[in-house]
């Protein structure tokens, strides 16, 4: 028999290292043709940080995304980026990138103010133009500005780093402020449990994530979907079998992970709470994407068959054993 169940779960996640300094840096140069070189320590491991940094730089400098070339994670060229972990790079390297761009922009603004004869505070950098926000006709193209920079022998360089504002935790009580910002999420899943085979099938996932601001919504959604795949493995499939210190299943034929065929319908929802400390309000989503689906599956299985499992993964054997046990209890045998 197939029994359906629904479960919900929530999570929170502090972005960055826990109560420890973890800075990251960035260098930027706006070139004479108004293209931009951005050098960030941040390692892109497929999640898309290089794209995020280019978007942040383009936004801050007022150029197009295509105008920004990113060199990342090369210790001879880029400053310290820290680890790509702790869901920290959008927040920390993102802020470093923004600060580096602000420094370059300061020089650009000085020259633009001189040329346009307006105060720096009134200048806007947008869509490859620099203009007076009170008089849109008073403007320079980025290329014109770079020409003026060249005439004056000035370079548009910037560097920046960011270290989140946290405190060390008290060594005896662990009291303090371990993170500057927290991401949040709520996930609801629908599962089907086959009471004959014990198989749990994940049918549907609705997962809402407060990411502060989505720098790139499609990439946030991709993170949520990837996290759902991995969380499914955690809840019902994966386990490293160790015997006398030896891993008995170190290959894909014996350590099964979810594949495309195991993917349920996923409805990712992006919630934007605008984190004051984040670049343009962004938090982090890399790890939050994984977390809430795991307890949500456990809760959905309980909803389906009336058993809450306290040990993961929940294998078909576990399901059958518990159902058998329940049946015995019902029959009054145990």
């Amino acid at each position, binding site marked *: 028999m197939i029994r359906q169940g629904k479960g919900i779960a929530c*999570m929170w996640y502090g972005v960055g290292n*826990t109560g420890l300094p973890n800075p990251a840096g960035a260098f930027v140069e706006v070139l004479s043709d108004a293209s931009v070189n951005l050098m960030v320590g941040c390692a892109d491991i497929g999640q898309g940080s290089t794209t995020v940094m280019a978007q942040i730089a383009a936004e801050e400098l007022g150029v197009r995304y295509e105008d920004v070339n990113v060199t990342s994670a090369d210790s001879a060229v880029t400053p310290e980026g820290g680890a790509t972990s702790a869901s920290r790079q959008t927040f920390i390297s993102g802020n470093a990138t923004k600060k580096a761009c602000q420094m370059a922009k300061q020089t650009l603004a000085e020259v633009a103010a001189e040329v346009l004869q307006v105060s720096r505070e009134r200048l806007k950098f947008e869509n490859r133009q620099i203009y007076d926000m009170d008089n849109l006709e008073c403007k320079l193209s980025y290329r014109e500005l770079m020409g003026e920079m060249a005439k004056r022998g000035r370079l548009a360089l910037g560097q920046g780093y960011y270290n989140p504002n946290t405190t060390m935790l008290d060594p005896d009580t662990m009291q303090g402020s371990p993170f500057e910002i927290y991401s949040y999420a*709520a996930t609801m899943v629908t599962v089907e449990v086959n009471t004959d085979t014990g198989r749990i099938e994940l049918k549907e996932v609705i997962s809402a994530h407060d990411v502060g601001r989505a*720098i*790139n919504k499609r990439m946030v959604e991709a993170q949520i979907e990837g996290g759902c795949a991995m*969380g499914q493995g955690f809840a019902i499939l994966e386990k490293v079998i160790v015997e006398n210190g030896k891993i008995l299943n170190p*290959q894909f034929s014996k350590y099964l992970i979810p594949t495309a065929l195991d993917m349920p319908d996923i409805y990712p929802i992006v919630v934007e709470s605008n984190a004051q400390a984040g670049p343009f309000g962004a938090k982090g989503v890399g790890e939050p994407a994984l977390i809430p689906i795991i307890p949500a599956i456990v809760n959905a299985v309980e909803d389906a068959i009336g058993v809450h499992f306290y040990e993961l993964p929940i294998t078909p054997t576990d399901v059958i054993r518990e159902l058998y046990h329940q049946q015995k209890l019902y029959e009054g045998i145990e």
Partner: protein
Amino acid sequence: MEKKLSVVGKNVIKKDAFEKVTGKTVFSADLDMEDMLYGAVLRSTVPAAVIKNIDTSKARALEGVESVLTAKNIPGRNAVGIILKDEPILVEDKIRRIGDAIAIVAAKTEETAQEALSLIDVTYEEIEPIFTFDRAIQEDSPNIHGITNVLQTKHLRHGDVRAGFEKCDVIVEHTYKTSMLSHMFIEPEAGLATYENGMITIYSSTQNPHFDRGEVAAMMAFPQNKVRSVQMTTGGGFGGKLDISVQCHAALLAYNTKKPVKMVRKRTESAMVSSKRHPMTIHARTGATKEGKLMAMEVTMRGDTGAYASYGPAVITRAMVHCTGPYVIPNVSIDATFVYTNNPMAGAFRGFGVPQVALVHEGQIEALAKELSMDSVALRLINLQHPGAETSTGQKLGSDVGLETCISQVLSKRKELDGKEGD
């Protein structure tokens, strides 16, 4: 007024998309250089032993072998580790797990390198291995590192947990267990190192090239600016490419041969040696008033970090500070102990202990809801963190707490989908 954004928030095409979908991306294993050698690692097949002798003479004599190195060939620090430097680059005396690196070889072909490994004779004396938490903490158990097998014991204290429980009408108590998990990133660890003009360059699949630079420099006793660490396109990591993998071994072989050395792990080697998710046992007691207000939580956590600390200390701390979940609980007491064993090394894995504790806080909420005959979403909403709320570390949250919106959006999406199904 909020600034109108023109690039942030747009679904631009990822910078690496075109190269990846057209199969042009170069990964570490694709690197090829003139005179390039292939590196390989001899690994221990026993979990606990003391090395008596390593005889590399037969391996050295093999045609095509250019270098065979052991711990005594390391000019600087023979220890790596993200938080504690407790893992040898090449074992000098003590084997602490299956897969510990004992010797490395560089040869003209991969096959020759593998053959050379089989010609290295290691004499060792096995000692009692420790595989369980309980055995690790016994007084008479052999010490894997230093003078204790306890990696760390930590305590979190917030409010008065005893007084908190006294105000509770219902208390639930459960023990949760999670398994050791493997990242199974699609691209196994790989890298290439060169040594030219007094400078070591490493190209590798990594999540932290700057950390790798520091570890290689310390191993070589080089200034850090004489080591260049370049991250190649990386095929996933999930925390499993934060530890040193091939970087130190490839660099040491390149330095000794003056030739480029490439090292690519096989899937089995990768899964045996890379860090794993900490298996954890968590016992939790949580209490609430009959109105559903959470009053107290008391937790003990046990974890096994295996042979080396890796990111273990960070996992403990993060798990503890997230243990309440996104709920306000005024009285919290948590004790956590992680131990060393001779099991595979556990380290960073997407979530750093938070997936483990999420199972606990969400399980406890469900259990309390049942005891209180209350809807579990309603119970969550009563206790949800809100702007200005205080966490179990005493931190006052800012304005950016969007959880209530997350819950309401999930519920309305559910309603919308149910409506569609009803049509």
